[in-house]
Each structure stands twice: as C-alpha cells, then as structure tokens.
C-alpha cells in the first residue's frame, strides 16, 4: 500500500508537467503543408510589443520582451499564429492588406497571406490596448524570392518610442 501510494505521488509530480507539455505541443501543432512558413507572435500591452517570445505568467511582469522582426520571402506561404498575453489587441499589415484582426487572450488567431513584393512593412495594433498602444509597431521584412534583402527605398524606419521605452531587462 505504501509503495503504491508513493508511486502515485511520483506519477502525479512527473505526469502533470509532462501532460502540460504534451497538450501545449498539441495546441501548437501547425498544418502539415509543404513550404508553409509559420510565425508565432505574441502581443503584449505592457510596453506595446509584438514579440516572438513566449510571454507567460512568470515573465510577463518581470521584463520587456524583444520586439519581433519577422522575415519572409516573396511568394512564400506565410501563417501568422497570434496570441495575446493580456488584453484584446489588433493585428494589421495595412500595406499588404493583412487584417485587421482581433487577437484575444486564450485564443490562437491565425492569419495567412502570401507576400508579392519585397520591402519592409508596418505591423501595427489597431485596437486600443493600453497606454503603449500608439507605439505598438513592428516591421515585417519581405525579402526577394531567393532571400535577397529588400531594396533601400522600401526600407522602413519606425518612429522613435517616447512613452514606452524598451529598457526593462
């Protein structure tokens, strides 16, 4: 009886994290399409940031994640898998007519598109999400079909951050 009880406790302590990891992997599974470029992005209101980083309970309040800079190629099938770490955000790449679409916490929102021209394009939040909303930008870099960088005249310079500096480490 004692050995069985000990075994049950150990199974619980080991099994639950393993189950969480398995379910997380299952939820993150992407369509098995050849050539599909999947980009996972999380929107964060604190700091006004789109990031590649996994923003969860233990790091949300601790530091500012790095701003994402997705890079894709012309003609590539792109799938954005979008999460919100906090409130309802919007996602839009106006010049490529991607979005606007809402990103709600607790959901994985998917957006597909296929870029047709090289360049750097503005990604922006389009729903008022907090004090840093006005500075919630990122850049999508679309390279040529063979990976050549976008032409100089298509490069984009983001406006400087004033309210929400990226100074938390």
């Amino acid at each position, binding site marked *: 009886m*004692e050995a069985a009880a000990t075994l049950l406790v150990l199974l619980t*302590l080991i099994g639950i994290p393993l189950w969480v990891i398995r379910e*997380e992997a299952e939820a993150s599974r992407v369509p098995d399409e050849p050539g599909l470029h999947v980009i996972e992005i999380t929107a964060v209101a604190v700091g006004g940031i789109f990031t590649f980083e996994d923003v969860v*309970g233990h790091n949300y*309040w601790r530091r500012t994640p790095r701003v994402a800079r997705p890079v894709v190629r012309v003609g590539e099938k792109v799938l954005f898998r979008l999460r919100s770490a906090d409130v309802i955000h919007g996602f839009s790449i106006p010049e490529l007519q991607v979005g606007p679409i809402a990103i709600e916490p607790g959901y994985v929102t998917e957006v597909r598109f296929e870029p047709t021209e090289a360049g750097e394009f503005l990604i922006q939040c389009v729903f008022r999400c907090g004090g840093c909303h006005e500075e919630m930008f990122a850049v999508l870099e679309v390279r040529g079909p063979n990976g050549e960088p976008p032409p100089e005249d298509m490069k984009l310079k983001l406006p400087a951050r004033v309210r929400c500096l990226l100074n938390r480490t």
Partner: protein
Amino acid sequence: MNGPEPSGRIDLLQIVPGLKWLLTRRWFQFAVVLPNLAFFYLFLIAGAFGSPVGSRNIIIIFVWILWWFLLIAVMVPLASRIWCTVCPIPFFGEWYQRRALVGVRVGKPGVGRNRMWGQNRRWPRALSNIWLQNFGFLLLCTFSVPLLTRPIVSTIVLGGLVLLATVLHVIYRQRAFCRYVCPIGGFLSLYSMCSMVEVRARNLETCDECTDKSCLAGGETGWGCPWYVNPSRLERNNYCGLCMECLKSCSHDNMTIRARAFGSETALKGYDEAWKAFIMIGLALAYSVALLGPWGIVKDWANPTESGKWGGFALYAVALWTLTLAIVPAAFYAAAGLGRRLAGKAGVTMKEAFLGFSGVLVPLGLAAWIAFSIPLILVNGSYVLNVISDPLGRGWDLLGTAHTPWMPFHPEYAAILQIAVLLAGLFYALRSGWRFASERYGDRPAAVRAVAPAAILSTAVAGGFLWLFVG
C-alpha cells in the same frame, strides 16, 4: 458503551451507511488529498507558465472564485474544516515527518507513541495562538488585488505556503504550520464554530476511564492528534482539522462525527480569536467597498501595481489595518463595556463581556463573507467552463468549452440572496449575543440591557453591508 446523544446532535457514523468504514480506512486521507494535490500542482504550473490574464488562468478562476466560494459558502458552514482534510499544502511536510503516506509508525524517536522524523521541536509557547495567522492573513489581504488577479502572484504565494509548511514540519512537531501559521487556517478556525458538523467523543466517561489515550498519543492504528488538541476533550471545532486520525486511533471506538444545528458554538476564548473576528468583518467591509462598490478610486488604490497609485495604496493599507485592528475592536469594546454598565451587575469581567459579545461576529462575519462572494460566483462563474478546458489559457480546448462566452448566471438574484444570507447571519449573531448575556447575567432585564449595545452595533454592521450590497 455509548451514552445518549447530546441534545440536537445526530451521530453521522451511525446513520450514514458506510461512512464509518470509509473514514476509518488508513488510505482515506491520502485518497482525498492526492487528487487535490494534482489540481493544486497544475494550478501552480498554470500560474507560472500559463496566461498572465486572470480570467484565462485556472489558478485564478479555480482558487479565488470557485474554491473560495465553495470554501466559505459550502464547506465551512456545512462541514467545518473539511478543507483541512483535503488540503495539499502540508502534504510534503507531513510525508517527511511520518515517512508514510498511508500507514502508521510506532516507536522512537517520535511524538507520543508514534515514530516521527524531523527535529520534533515544540512550537514556542509565545506563538501558541492565532496572532501569526491574523497578521499573515491581513498582510496577504492588503495585497489582495494583485494576488487575486495575477496568476504568478498566486503561484508565488501558494507555492511559498507549501515551502513554508514543509520547512516548519521539518523543524516543529506535527502540524504547527496548520495550527499556528496558515493564514487560511485562521479564519477556518473561527468560522468552523458555526459549522453543522463536529468531531467529538461519544461518551466522556469512557474517555475518563481510558488509560492509553491513543487519540492523543497515537498507536498502531492511528497517529496521535496532529493538531495539538485532546480529541476526547473537544468542545469547540476551532482547532480540529478533521484529519480523522482520532477515529482510527481510539481503542474504544469512542470518537464520532455528529451533525448539529448551524451556529452551535460562538464562544471566543482569547483576544487572538476576537481579533480574528474583527479582522474578518473589517476585511469583508473593505472588500465590499473596494471590489463591489462604485468607487473607482478606491479600487485603483487597492490595485497599485496596475494603477500606479502607490500613495493611494498607502492610504488604503493604513485605513485597512486601522479599521480591522483598531476601529472595529474599539466599537465592540465600547459596546461590551456599555452593556456591562447598563446591566449593572458585578461578576462579569470586562474581558468576559468583550470576548462574549465579540462572538456575535462569528455568524455575522461568515454571513458577510458569503454575501460578498455570491455576486463573484454568479457573475464570474462561467469562466470555470473556459479554464477547465484550457487551464493555462494557451489556446487548448480539452473539453470543448474553452471559448464559451462569458455569461453571468442570474446576477439579478444576487441581491436577494445577499439580503437573505445577511439577515440569517444577523439572526444568529443576535442569538449568540443573547445566549451569552442570558448565561452570564441571569435575569432577563439585565441580560437585555447587557446585550442591547452589541445587538445594535451588529444590526448597524449588517445594515452597512446591506447598503453596500443592495443600497
């Protein structure tokens, strides 16, 4: 062997088929703690690695909405400290002490006849009261908004309690943490007095004649009471954690569980217990103002990590501590003193009157907390469907309910339920005050004069809550 049941008591072990068999199995407590431990562990993981959004994280919804409501509105009134039976917080510490999850060990070194590991030190006499629990709970409640809304804060606090419990189990004998430190245990001890069940000896004469005292010292069939109480002499529920060890260890089969009327005991035994009652009613009042009231500024002050209003938070914290530690006690002290003077009889000391009339806050405080919790569960209860299907708020959908829209459950009935609960609480409070006055002052006119100030104060407190909830 069994004497007649005390009036108004029903021996549940005799009338519920299979209950005695179940509760006297050695594996019983392990069987109820393990699933709870699994959920608790998942909650801690969810708080650290799940969504930072409270409404999307199982630790916030299950612990602070569902568990809290079930605890205060169902478990405590109906089943005393049944939560302590299933609580996973002391699990690892007790496992370390006993080196057993199911069985019992006898021999030395140990406590009583039970062999136990750890340093087995005695808990300091100066701390053998619930003051630590009072201040610990008040401190946690001062930071309640971040605690109740941020999953990582809940993980740190609840995980910290597990760690603290384990360390204290290593150093001190038996359940020192649960009895003297656990901030949840403090208010459970207070409100379990109202509860409708009790663990008691069937026949006190049998206990008087008992020579082995195995309920206290342990034996081969059960551990000695881990809560530092003598089960054979239990008169109040406060410090009985319903671990059921005395049912197993009693060599005369003389321990039982009885059903009884709600509010059967309200007598406070010390200032520490009285201040627990003051703290709890003060907190219920403060929360009702800050969380349910229409004053946004107070809500901002209570939530400084989001609002950034630290000056306001300092004011809120000072007001909270002053209200609970000074204003409410002073009001009841004045009421007790006035009643004592009006009664005009010698023989009842000021301390007796103060503690006696403070006991009215046991049923009234419990009712206030239940009333406060009713709209929380009615309005936010549907989030349970979301997080049970997606515990970490990461986009899972285990049961197909992850995206169920938020739907308050008949919030229009909240006010009616709150009024009913508060009025019931006031009834039991007045009855408690009257019982004390009748017992201590003897003749009816003196008792009426003695109880009048405390009764008026209790009615005013209940009226204040009614105004806050439905006014």
